[in-house]
């Protein structure tokens, strides 16, 4: 009995446990019998234990390089650094399924534990839904892609991790994304429970609001990590390509953002109930779609449908859940009528709805553009695709509208607003915006950026609005409590974390989009071939190819690349003088056909970009060495017996170093890119602030104060 058997056993029992949770939860939901609800809840806890066991067993196999495990043999090797051994687990299809369902069981256990005394009517059905989703993933693992598949005759050495993935950001990217996708399953499950039980009030939202926010935060962070990796590791120098896989993760984030706003409307005013349940259904669908798109190959390759074996079952599952959810929402529409009507157009409700509509619009555009190859083929017979110009051209102006809305929203209150009070609130931010525009036009060439200029102005506007909100809030608190300003500010923020955390997020988004605008409107890219000694000028940098570099078994980037060809470049800008060292890592191919030396140049090659970041602009350099002149030495090395391969490679490398041919360089100067990452950090900080729970004691103290007051008034009334 090997650990792979125990692992498979855990999955089998897990599937049974998940199905039990579905049955027991549904029964408890129907009959209201508490002991069955408790039993179903325990089944979810048990599922967590089983999946934890499975994860530990699989990771242990990776760490000890147990190549009888098919996954380990395909994704790891004895010389893979331990960090990448551990994280390689989710670079494989089966392993990532295990991670997904493990995260689902963890989050489900958390929410069921936290709500074990509440929501007694809808929690059992939610348990059933969560169990059902888990059962699907377990079913996929047991019948389509098992993480515990074993090889009859284990190889001596594994294939190693795909070098493109050997980067910390790329290793954290999938778990972050999955936490996001899984996190949105929780409100979805409770929404379904609420609909089934016709308890469509704000209870399901209150219980799962934090989970939605956590999911949103992790998903956003995962997306950001992915684009950071793309920019700093891949050889093309951009951070977003509107690639189907990227879009698949962005869409649920957009609907998730809409959801986080619109649930506030339901909590405060009892409106938008149908909208909210529909939105969370859509978000969950898009999250599943995001999980599935990466695996199916449906959009990557032409005319390939369900290339991976998982394509069909995923599609059936998504279609089933979609049809069932829509049917459920439609059947409960009488329970979803709003409590209230819109009082005035100038109100927070209306602006949140506008915000939602804009976000949905962006999502629809992305969806359309991503699936356009399939749509156009269905409609016209030819597959057509749209690229970044389509997405950028349409979405950029819409994003400006979104930022504008995010500046006005904080100034509004619920139901109705007095125009004169608003005018007063707008005065300072508007003035700052005007000053910003004038300054940008007078002192910079920002005008050439068109939409970028508008973005810069809006960012200044948003920032001013938020600072003003903090200031006005502190001042208001001081009139109530007389505290000194720093105390008032910290207590204000501490007691209104949702509000002020949200404002910080708005600033973060504005900063992020400012970075996007700056780097897309004002960047410069040059692709040149340079001989040693030659110089290229880009923006205000002079880049000179000084000399080539060769590294053998000395990978600067820590990915274990045996061979690295690069360059030392002297860069001058005004009176600054520094060097940059881009390189290209070569990983040997496993195939013997290319010869013992040739296979080093026939396997994967990755660009080791050198990036000099700065607050004003980034200088990005990548190199593509020209290896044609080395064909001779490589061929000669191939003819030698295998045991001389090492020396032959050294000879080839020395040949390159001594007589370097011109190399192809790509140089990119992107202004304000670093503000994208900074903005992202601000967003995360704001989200953390909004998520942070207020300490119990403070709440109880406030509660008793109010209770006493209300009690006094009650006795008088």
């Amino acid at each position: 009995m090997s650990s792979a058997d125990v692992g498979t056993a855990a999955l089998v029992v897990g599937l049974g446990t998940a199905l039990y949770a579905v049955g027991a939860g549904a029964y408890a939901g129907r009959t209201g019998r508490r002991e069955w609800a408790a039993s179903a809840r325990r089944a979810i806890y048990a599922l967590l234990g089983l999946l934890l066991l499975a994860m530990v067993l699989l990771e242990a196999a990776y760490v000890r390089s147990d190549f009888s495990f098919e996954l380990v043999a395909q994704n790891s090797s004895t010389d893979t650094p331990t960090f990448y051994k551990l994280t390689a687990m989710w670079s494989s299809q089966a392993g990532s399924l295990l991670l997904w369902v493990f995260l689902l069981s963890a989050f489900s256990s958390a929410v069921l534990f936290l709500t074990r005394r509440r929501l007694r009517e809808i929690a059992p059905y939610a348990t059933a839904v969560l169990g059902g989703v888990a059962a699907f993933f377990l079913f996929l693992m047991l019948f389509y892609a098992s993480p515990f598949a074993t090889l009859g005759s284990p190889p001596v050495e594994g294939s190693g991790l795909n070098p493109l993935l050997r980067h910390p950001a790329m290793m954290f990217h999938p778990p972050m994304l999955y936490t996001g996708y899984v996190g949105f399953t929780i409100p979805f499950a409770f929404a379904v429970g609420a609909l089934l039980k016709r308890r469509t009030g704000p209870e399901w939202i209150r219980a799962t609001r934090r989970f939605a926010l956590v999911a949103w935060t992790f998903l956003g962070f995962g997306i950001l990590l992915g684009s950071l990796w793309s920019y700093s590791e891949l050889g093309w120098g951009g951070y977003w390509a509107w690639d189907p896989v990227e879009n698949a993760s962005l869409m649920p984030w957009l609907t998730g953002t809409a959801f986080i706003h619109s649930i506030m409307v339901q909590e405060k005013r009892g409106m938008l109930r149908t909208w909210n349940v529909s939105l969370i259904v859509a978000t969950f669908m898009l999250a599943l779609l995001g999980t599935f798109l990466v695996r199916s190959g449906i959009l990557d390759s032409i005319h390939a449908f369900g290339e991976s074996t998982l394509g069909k079952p995923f599609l059936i599952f998504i279609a089933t859940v979609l049809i069932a959810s829509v049917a459920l929402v439609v059947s409960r529409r009488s329970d979803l009528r709003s409590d209230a009507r819109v009082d005035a157009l100038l109100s927070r409700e209306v602006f949140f709805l506008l915000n939602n509509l804009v976000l949905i619009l962006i999502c629809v555009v992305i969806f359309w553009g991503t699936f356009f190859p399939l749509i156009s083929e269905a409609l016209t017979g030819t597959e057509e695709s749209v690229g970044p110009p389509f997405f950028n051209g349409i979405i950029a102006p819409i994003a400006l509208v979104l930022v504008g809305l995010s500046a006005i929203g904080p100034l509004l209150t619920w139901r109705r607003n007095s125009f004169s009070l608003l005018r007063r609130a707008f005065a300072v931010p508007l003035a700052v915006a005007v000053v910003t525009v004038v300054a940008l036009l007078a002192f910079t060439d920002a005008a050439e950026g068109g939409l970028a200029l508008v973005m810069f102005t809006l960012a200044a506007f948003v920032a001013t609005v938020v600072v003003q909100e903090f200031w006005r809030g502190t001042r208001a608190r001081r009139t109530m409590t007389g505290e000194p300003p720093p105390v008032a500010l910290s207590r204000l923020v501490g007691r209104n974390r949702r509000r002020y955390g949200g404002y910080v997020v708005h600033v973060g988004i504005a900063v992020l989009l400012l970075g996007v605008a700056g780097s897309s409107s004002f960047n410069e890219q040059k692709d040149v071939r340079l001989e040693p000694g030659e110089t290229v000028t880009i923006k205000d940098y002079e880049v000179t190819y000084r000399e080539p570099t060769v590294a053998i078994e000395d990978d600067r980037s820590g990915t274990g690349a045996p061979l690295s060809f690069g360059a030392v470049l002297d860069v001058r800008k005004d009176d600054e003088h520094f060097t940059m060292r881009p390189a290209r890592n070569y990983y040997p191919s496993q195939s013997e056909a290319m010869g013992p030396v040739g296979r080093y140049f026939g396997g994967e090659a990755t660009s080791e970009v050198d990036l000099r970041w700065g607050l004003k602009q980034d200088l990005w350099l990548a190199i593509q060495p020209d290896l044609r002149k080395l064909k001779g030495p490589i061929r000669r090395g191939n003819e030698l017996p295998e045991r001389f391969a090492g020396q032959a490679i050294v000879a080839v490398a020395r040949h390159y170093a001594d007589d370097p041919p011109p190399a192809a360089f790509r140089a990119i100067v992107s202004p304000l890119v670093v503000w994208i990452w900074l903005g992202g950090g601000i967003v995360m900080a704001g989200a953390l602030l909004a998520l942070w729970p207020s300490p119990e004691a403070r709440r109880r103290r406030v509660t008793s104060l109010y209770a006493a007051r209300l009690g006094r008034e009650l006795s008088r009334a």
Partner: protein
Amino acid sequence: MEVVLPALVLAAVIALLVLQPLRTPSTESASDPRADLEAAKEAKYREIKDAELDFRMGKLSEADWRPLDAELRGQAIAILRDLDRLEGRRM
């Protein structure tokens, strides 16, 4: 089938854990809304505080705030009454 043995062991452990609540049928009603009422109360207090903050910050005029505050407090009182009734106390 070397999977069967560990599967049986795991299943037995799980069954013990999961079936335990079923041995003692609960006498509690399916809808004990105390925790839900507490959550609703907290939410209502937050609304009252938010409204006051909006007023003091100048987003709400006094003419708009007073009736809103009264309405919200009325709703809070109703929740407190429900809570008290649950605990069997009389005011």
